[in-house]
């Protein structure tokens, strides 16, 4: 289909473009920006005046709960929510049931995503078999099956020798390792950041060092093994310093942060609000400020939703008996735009953190509006505001800590390969 998106403010950080004009799409690819190509007759035109036109968003981590936990959510339900949120590509971690440690599970996910005809879904394969942290997963086979990286998700790799060998083997397979850093012993079944709030509420605490010790260990192993490692869901200001030091030494490591950690702190759990039980835990104000600063200075390049939909029973119990994770996919864009209004990021930086940066980490050819690239596009009204109503969420997970928050920024159209998968 020939499509013209006219008069929008086109922001494409990958090509350093910020201009008002039109975008032309043909055969599922970006055809031109600005001037209409000779003889181009659009079959359809979208008026994007007063709207922003940017590459479709890429979410480095959202749990779709399929296969295995369809009572929480499905690929169909969550890709529908993602599409309505401007997200065109989703990476899902391997902690499904069964674990994505065989090509068959990855193929099943591709198949279900293709059936739902919404956002693209890219699985991460397991780093160790069954995520048990003991033996290596078949990374080469997983890569061949289309996994864009490998990860052990939340599951700890206690044995440092196993981590070393896993990184070496991943380097051999030339596959990116998405590493969630948490020292299992220091976490010690904790559920809240170690600080005044956990002390007051008597909640088992997770110290800052549960993350920083694991980050330090991983950084030294990256140096030794030469593996390509992406650090997932950084939550402490101190980790930002460690990552910045490593990058200054020339280590090619990247990092992302979950959107909730840029907006919430441990204070938000202070009434035992189970919707605020997430991992890593919401940390202090100082950490939140440090994460925002880390995004601004480029130590962290990507923002992800870290979306984790749950059925209501999963959150309906005493705090530490509930399941961690928050439903956030529909707030990813507006809460990222909030960082622009809070003067932490420029608009280009915010869009880059949701498009070109995650594309680079995942190795995608999307996340940009270059001529010839797949036409994955997000169009949004940056001024339109709306209230988060849990019942109105498209995600099957209503477990959001942002209920009744006011969001500014609303997606009006989402395109995948030139097809409109969502229209307001």
């Amino acid at each position, binding site marked *: 289909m020939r499509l013209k998106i006219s008069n929008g403010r086109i922001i494409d950080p990958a090509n350093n473009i910020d201009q008002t004009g039109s975008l032309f799409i043909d055969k599922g690819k970006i055809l031109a920006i600005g001037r209409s190509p000779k003889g181009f007759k659009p079959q359809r035109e979208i008026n994007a005046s007063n709207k922003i036109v940017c590459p479709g968003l890429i979410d480095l981590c959202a749990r779709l709960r399929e296969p295995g936990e369809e009572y929480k959510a499905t690929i169909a339900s969550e890709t529908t929510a993602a599409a309505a949120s401007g997200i065109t590509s989703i990476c899902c971690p391997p902690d499904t049931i069964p674990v994505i440690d065989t090509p068959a599970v990855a193929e099943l996910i591709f198949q279900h995503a293709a059936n739902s005809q919404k956002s693209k879904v890219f699985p991460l394969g397991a780093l160790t078999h069954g995520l048990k942290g003991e033996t290596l997963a078949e990374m080469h086979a997983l890569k061949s099956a289309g996994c864009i990286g490998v990860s052990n998700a939340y599951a700890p790799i206690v044995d440092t020798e196993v981590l070393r060998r896993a990184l070496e083997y991943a380097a051999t397979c030339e596959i990116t390792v998405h590493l969630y850093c948490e020292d299992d012993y220091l976490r010690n079944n904790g559920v809240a950041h*170690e*600080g*005044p709030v*956990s*002390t*007051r*509420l*008597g*909640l*088992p*605490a997770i110290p800052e060092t549960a993350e920083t010790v694991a980050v330090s260990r991983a950084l030294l192993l990256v140096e030794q093994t030469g593996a390509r490692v992406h650090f997932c869901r950084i939550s402490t200001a101190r980790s930002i310093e460690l990552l910045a030091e490593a990058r200054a030494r020339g280590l090619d490591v990247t990092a992302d942060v979950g959107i909730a950690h840029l907006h919430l702190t441990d*204070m938000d759990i*202070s*009434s*035992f*609000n189970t919707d605020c039980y997430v991992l890593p835990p919401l940390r202090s104000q100082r950490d939140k400020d440090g994460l925002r600063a880390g995004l601004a200075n480029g130590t962290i390049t990507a923002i992800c939703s870290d979306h984790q939909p749950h059925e209501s*029973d999963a959150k*309906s*119990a*005493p*705090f*530490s*008996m509930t399941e961690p994770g928050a439903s956030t996919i529909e707030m990813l864009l507006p809460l990222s735009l909030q960082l622009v209004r809070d003067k932490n990021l420029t608009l280009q930086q915010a869009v880059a953190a949701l498009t070109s940066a995650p594309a680079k980490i995942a190795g995608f050819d999307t996340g940009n509006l270059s001529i010839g690239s797949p036409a994955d596009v997000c169009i949004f009204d940056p001024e339109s505001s709306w209230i988060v109503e849990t019942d109105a969420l498209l995600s099957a997970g209503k477990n959001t800590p942002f209920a009744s928050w006011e969001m500014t920024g609303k997606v009006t159209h989402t395109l995948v390969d030139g097809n409109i998968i969502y229209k307001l």
Partner: protein
Amino acid sequence: MTGNNIQLDAQGRLKHFLTIEGIDRSLLFEILDYAESFAAVSERAVKKVPLLRGITIANLFFEPSTRTRTTFELAAKRLSADVLNLNILSSATKKGETLSDTLQTLEAMHCDMFIVRHANSGAAHFIASKVAPHIRVINGGDGRHSHPTQAMLDMFTIRKHKPDFTKLKVAIIGDVLHSRVARSEIHALSILGVPEIRVIGPRTLIPADISCLGAHAYYDMNEGLKDVDVVMMLRLQRERMCSALLPSEHEYFKRYGLDEKKLALAKADAIVMHPGPINRGIEIESSIADSERSVILQQVSHGIAVRMAIMAMTMGNKTTGSQVEETA
């Protein structure tokens, strides 16, 4: 923003009793004064008042407990309530029933009040937020978070001996990290105006942020006990011994066990308290536990009066124990 206000109704009266935090000084004194009127009831030949006649109280103990459950049961019976004891450890939850389902089942049996003990912090808040509006919830201890009736009976006992809270130095000794009793005591002491609250223990058992609750941390008994009026010992769970937290019972007793020599640093008229059950020779020397300075057994009997007061108040009753006697 503590969310504790679910325990108060729109008029600021006690609806549930979940935590000391967020209750103001006058209401704490009201509880203590009201408890005074019940203290006499237990000493009469007929140890009963008809205040909660027809009311059904369910003891929901998700965690083993003898003395707390027993004193709640006695308190309820002395108020003429019917008591249902549910040892949930061995029943429903083992069969996979969720907490919400258990609560709904009990509601269907028309219980009016739940006394809840649970191993997880926030459990009593959770239950209070789930039950039907007419049901009252009293926290009998949740995880490491709160044990408000214990704190109130401790305050009641302190006041018997030291009537003016604003002149006291109080030390709390032992495993503060895992202690709901310590947290509730610190809140109560601080709301009642105690100017100096100390916690004493090794760094492994004192949370680094304890000062945010208004307590000063001491790691040495000799410094911490100096000139205190009240010595509040905490129970040390056996499983904490010989772990990464403490090397041995012997070393713990030597450093933090209460013996004559250490107690001599406190004021001459200092009282010694313990929530029980005590570990003789680990937290406290036997001779001190049995001495005149120990008020440990008084704490137990005061527990009944204080719990009677709290149960009656949450049920909206203001008739005092002595008034009942007059009308009876």
